[in-house]
């Protein structure tokens, strides 16, 4: 089954155009994919990448253009036909049924209506997961799996159907670096066996690592196509945004007073994810505290305590040296703690509310109402201020936030959080899923906040981001917190050892 790269054309998209009302999401896009090749599809948020893939897979019907797989035209709007032709797709947002087992999710739709062959399916799944290093238990309920495991199930789904073309739409957006590495290993193995891959990502270093060729979209059009070995990250970024882009860099600064202190805090375990274990952490004015670690090691519990969603079961929390009597999100806000939530769709925004309403979600009681009466005029002005000040691209403040791209949604949330000039900023995965331009913007805002004296807690799985921004770095593993390491004192490899938990024993002994 091995085949040479670059021989046979397995997929050809020909002048695809797709319009949503007035907006042209894809504008005459053509693309070819050869056997065993990995093509990266790049572009800003909203450039039209997902739309193009949805057309290929049959979720959408193109207004113009055609799709050919192995030389055969693909009937439009028919995922079943795409699957039958050997196209597999791992969607940007997982398409798994949480109430079913891994095995059931994989074989869904592959059998007749009535009879089924239990043994054969299980065997095949087990073989595939062994061959491609996609470890996951076939009888586990998908609802209980971590995102990394779900990702593997999605890929298994495609492989199980003998996909020869695999579309991966931002597969690494929610993966830990380790999980991403494992995914790439799988992909290399699979392409070696003749699989062809379209890979969508905003993380350029990944693109450089895995892709043979890059196709760049901007405003629905192909603006460039380059061989990966003939380009670099900066050039790609420039192609994407249509100009030069400078990533923000934070210079070291002297830290100020302790604004928030968490001492000896422990929380109970939650299912598979560990609770905090005697965590002590100080957030200082004018300093970005980076919290590195593989997600699911207690970051969520820590974020809940800092953000006011939970009170520590054990241990103490103090702000400006005093312990708050009540500790709720409202109280946290009142005391100048700003929060950028991990999940902007579920926690950070209300999809069918417009931008004005989303902008005042946190401040409606204190700043935009009197005696229970909303002051919509002020609210709207506030939203307009954010839109202007934070460069939120949208038709206006009465647009439903659902229609915004992730980056613009994130900018609104950022603007909302920063508006009160907070002392303490909790930034939980603030740039997840964003394009390079948006990332640069969000990060520069965090640095600016630090520079005016705020204490920032930055939680991220991206070591580059942590090392680039943080004045002091802690690592979390199994609910334990490492000592703080000053900027520049640690290498990525050293931090990695802490993340794996190997350094903790020694530190405790000391």
């Amino acid at each position, binding site marked *: 089954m091995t085949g040479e790269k670059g021989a046979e054309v397995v997929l050809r998209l020909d002048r695809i155009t797709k319009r949503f*009302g*007035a907006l042209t999401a894809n504008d005459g896009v053509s693309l070819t994919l050869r056997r065993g090749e990995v093509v990266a599809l790049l572009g800003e948020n909203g450039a039209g990448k997902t739309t193009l893939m949805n057309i290929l897979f049959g979720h*959408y*019907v193109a207004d113009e253009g055609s799709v050919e797989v192995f030389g055969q035209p693909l009937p*439009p*709007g028919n995922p079943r036909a795409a699957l039958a032709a050997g196209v597999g797709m791992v969607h940007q947002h997982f398409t798994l049924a949480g109430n079913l087992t891994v095995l059931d999710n994989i074989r869904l739709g592959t059998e007749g209506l009535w009879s089924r062959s239990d043994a054969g399916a299980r065997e095949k799944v087990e073989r595939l997961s062994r061959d491609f290093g996609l470890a996951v238990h076939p009888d586990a309920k998908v609802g209980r799996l971590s995102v990394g495991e779900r990702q593997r199930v999605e890929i298994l789904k495609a492989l199980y159907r003998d996909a020869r073309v695999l579309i991966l739409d931002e597969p690494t957006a929610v993966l830990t670096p380790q999980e991403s590495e494992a995914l790439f290993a799988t992909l290399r193995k699979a392409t070696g066996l003749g699989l062809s891959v379209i890979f969508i990502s905003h993380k350029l270093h990944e693109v450089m690592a895995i892709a043979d060729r890059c196709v760049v979209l901007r405003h629905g059009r192909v603006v460039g196509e380059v061989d990966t070995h003939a380009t670099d990250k900066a050039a790609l970024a420039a192609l994407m945004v249509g100009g030069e882009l400078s990533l923000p860099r934070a210079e070291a600064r002297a830290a100020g007073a302790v604004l928030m202190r968490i001492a000896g805090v422990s929380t109970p375990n939650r299912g598979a994810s560990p609770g905090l274990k005697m965590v002590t952490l100080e957030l200082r004015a004018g300093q970005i505290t980076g919290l590195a670690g593989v997600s699911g090691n207690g970051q969520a519990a820590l974020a809940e305590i800092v*953000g*006011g*969603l939970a009170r520590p079961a054990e241990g103490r929390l103090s702000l400006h040296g005093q312990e708050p009597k009540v500790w*709720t*999100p*409202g109280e*946290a*806000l009142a005391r100048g703690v700003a*929060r950028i*939530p991990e999940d902007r769709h*579920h*926690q*950070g*925004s*209300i*999809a*069918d*509310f417009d931008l004005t*309403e989303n902008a005042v*979600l*946190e401040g*409606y*009681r204190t700043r935009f*109402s009197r005696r*229970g*009466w*909303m002051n*919509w005029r002020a609210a709207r002005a506030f939203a307009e201020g954010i839109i202007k000040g934070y460069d939120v691209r949208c038709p206006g403040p009465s647009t439903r936030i659902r229609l915004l791209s992730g980056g613009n949604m994130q900018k609104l949330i950022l603007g909302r959080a920063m508006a009160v000039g907070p002392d303490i900023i909790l930034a939980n995965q603030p740039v997840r899923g964003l394009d390079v331009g948006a990332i640069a913007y969000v990060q520069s805002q965090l640095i600016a906040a630090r520079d005016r004296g705020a204490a920032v807690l930055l939680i991220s799985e991206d070591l580059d981001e942590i090392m680039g921004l943080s004045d002091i770095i802690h690592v979390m593993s199994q609910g334990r917190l490492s000592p703080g390491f000053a900027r520049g004192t640690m290498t990525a490899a050293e931090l990695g050892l802490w993340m794996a938990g190997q350094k903790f024993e020694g530190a405790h002994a000391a």
Partner: protein
Amino acid sequence: MRLEPIANPSAARRLGLPALALVATLGVAMALALVAGANPFAVLGQIATGALGSKLAVLETLNRATPLIFTGLAVAVAFRAKLWNIGAEAQLYAGAIVAVVLGTGALGSPLVLPVSALAAMLAGAVLLLGPVLLKTRLGVDEVVTTLLLNFIMLLFVSYLLEGPMKDPLGMGWPKSPALIPEARLPRIVEGLRLHWGFALAILAAVIVWVIQTRTTLGFEIRAVGQNPEAARFAGMPVNAVLVKTALLSGGLAALAGWSEVAGLKGHLSSDLSPGFGYTGIIVAMLALLHPLGVVVTAIFVAGIFVGSGAMSRAAGVPTYIADMLMATALLFMVLAILLTRVRVVRG
């Protein structure tokens, strides 16, 4: 097929489609009349006259709309917060019970009307509070608890009417004593059957609308309904909001029963409501949960019912045609309202 939102629906579309739904309903009416051996062309006029053709007809339509406005508002308020209150029927009876308890002499005039209205609201609110607390505390599905409470409430009313609340002058029939005159809602215009309950219902709709659009509570209710997780994260007291919603919703539903007793019937019997609580759900959803829309849709639903009931008598077809037409009108209308906002495309 697939539905695609229309950015700016034209006026023709927004008015034409509901009109088309009405025409289609009348078409069904004609077909049914034909099946029943009546003159299909006569029935159209008969429906219109029956619903709006005379002073009597208009008043009857408005009268029947009154409890529907209240229950429709109750449902609209609750559903906004995704609180699935299917128990407006029970809350309605709670309000009716209070109207009797306080209105049969326990309280003297002139306080009795406002006090009993408030107490009725409280009773309805408390009745919904139980399921809501069960939902927020224990995660018990409120669709089922509120639904089951309807049956329990009806049996409780039946017990009251055959026991402690039985009218000693009622010749043994299970109904409550009559309200004292001071406890009755006066008619808006003497001689017309329309009572102040209707005006109160309109007022309630306006108040609910103001609450929803102008107050922090309204903002909170909508936020909690759309995304409780985000609401909680933003610092909203989600459970407290649900409780407040329940108080408002239960109170409004109770007013339906209160106004039927105080305004129309003058006493309580166990068949006070022919399903006003359930019809309220229809009214609210037709109005897309908009409080002012509820007034319109309640009158629409009442009009279809009254009009086609009158038609059945005039045309000599079985009365059940009225319910059939109400259902037909409803289904066509929700479809039409949807199609004003989206278009069907292939793919």
